[in-house]
């Protein structure tokens, strides 16, 4: 438990690399990067998000169209994913976004010989089964919310949010350079790797403190009971169907985040990154530091 009280970034112990033969003047340093509670919250989110996203797609499949406002005008969806029969009689999957039609046969709208919006491999459970999808979704929504509230309270209380996640003015000025670095996959090394770079901070702070609250609140706005208790939810999100649309967009923001996050974890030292999220300790390589 003492781990909880230690501050994550500055504590460092310099350990000379045992055999600094191949590259001269390289030392590796182990820093305590992720505190215990953060690590637990992180790993709880993995099954939560996996299940919430896929059971959410199961629920979406029950009425695979999105709208703005409070009601579903079926002739005016913002997005719909449906099977359609062509003139020759064969079934196709058609995704319509803002009136534009795309043939998405095989993945969206029609897959594996079945008319269904998202394919079986993307939903929990895999068969079309709304009742079970809702049970998965509403159970893990509780786990996700409790986990999120715990994390948010802790990171505000321990200054993890302010110190490590909230970009500073100096950080913001480095956005153009950071974008360039990321595009050529040049990753921070040495002292720069001790802390999150500005794009990392924006991604983490944005997903944790903007997208996650939005996805929870829009989920609650879809509850007719919650709407009676907090009618302002309908106002701020533009109606129940608008809330459903925002919930869907927030879901795919999570999907996008996860894809980039996992790719970056792999690109910047998979075992060091995974190890640090398990044990807390992260290895930084220092070049050109003379003993």
């Amino acid at each position, binding site marked *: 438990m003492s781990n909880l009280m230690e501050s994550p970034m500055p504590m460092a112990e310099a350990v000379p690399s045992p055999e600094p033969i191949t590259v001269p003047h390289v030392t590796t340093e182990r820093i305590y990067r992720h505190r215990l509670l953060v690590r637990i919250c992180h790993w709880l989110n993995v*099954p939560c998000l*996996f*299940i919430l996203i*896929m059971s959410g797609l199961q*629920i*979406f499949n*029950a*009425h695979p*169209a999105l709208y703005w406002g*409070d*009601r*579903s*005008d*079926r002739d005016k969806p913002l997005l719909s994913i449906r099977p359609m029969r062509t003139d020759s009689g064969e079934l196709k999957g058609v995704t319509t976004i803002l009136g534009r039609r795309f043939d998405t046969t095989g993945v969206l709208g029609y897959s594996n010989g079945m008319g269904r919006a998202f394919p079986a*491999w993307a939903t*929990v*459970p*895999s*068969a079309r*089964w*709304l*009742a*079970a999808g*809702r*049970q*998965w979704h*509403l*159970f893990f*929504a*509780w786990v996700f919310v409790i986990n999120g509230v715990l994390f948010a309270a802790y990171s505000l209380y321990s200054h993890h949010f302010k110190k490590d996640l909230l970009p500073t003015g100096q950080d913001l000025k480095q956005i153009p350079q950071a974008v360039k670095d990321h595009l050529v996959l040049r990753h921070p090394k040495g002292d720069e790797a001790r802390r999150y770079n500005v794009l990392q901070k924006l991604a983490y702070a944005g997903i944790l403190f903007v997208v996650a609250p939005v996805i929870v609140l829009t989920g*609650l706005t*879809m*509850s*007719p*009971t*919650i*709407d*009676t*208790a907090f*009618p302002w939810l*309908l106002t701020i999100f533009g109606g*129940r*169907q608008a809330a*459903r649309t925002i919930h869907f967009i927030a879901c795919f923001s999570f999907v996008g985040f996860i894809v980039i996050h*996992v790719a970056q974890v*792999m690109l910047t030292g*998979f075992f060091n990154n995974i190890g640090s999220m398990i044990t807390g300790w992260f290895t930084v390589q220092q070049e050109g530091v003379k003993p």
Partner: protein
Amino acid sequence: MARRGFLKATVGAASLVALAGCDNLTQSSWFPGILQKAQGLTETAQWAITPANAMAKEYNEADISALFPANGNTDPGTQDYADMAQSNFAGWDVSIDGLVKTPMSYSLAAIKEMPARTQITRHDCVEGWSAIGKWTGVPLGDLLRAAEPLPTAKYAVFHCADVDEEGIAYYESMAVADCYHPQTILAYELNGLPLDVPHGAPLRLRFERQLGYKQAKYIQRIELVESLEGIGMGKGGYWEDQGYEWYAGI
């Protein structure tokens, strides 16, 4: 590069195993029971933060859906019902019985003469869509008060005239406390016209704080009970017996 390929394959395989695992758990005898525990938590939490008389949003005429979809059973399909429909439901009665002091029976005509409430509200289907309609009907609380429920009555069970293809009768239930909510009505009009058959003629429930499958159609009998056991498959409703939540507040 080989390592990256290995990692990708590992992640892919893990996802497939996890998916298959979810399917197995869904089919198991014990796991859905754990998932369903969330329902009690949701119900308790929502009850705790929602004032008893918090009202569902009421909309304007301009907000009414051009087309209000009819879902579930759209025609009871029995000869009895067809005969009733033929005579404009002149012989339709609703009885209120079970755990009440004074069992009552109302004809449709008598219900239409009672003080009515009209509300333009949003119907939220469990599938995800919403439609807005103008409902007119008699507050259910008025009917219940006349029948004087006994203190032991916990649920109102709505017995309906519709049966599905397999002959299973539709029924629904709600907490007695919810029956007294001002917007809980037995509706006989939709958008200024008598209810049509697909929307539940001649009488259907409007319970504006919960999802569409709670809004029972073709209501013939309201039975007050202490427990839902022994009715249908015991879960409190036609859809509940098929795995949907009894508490349909979300």
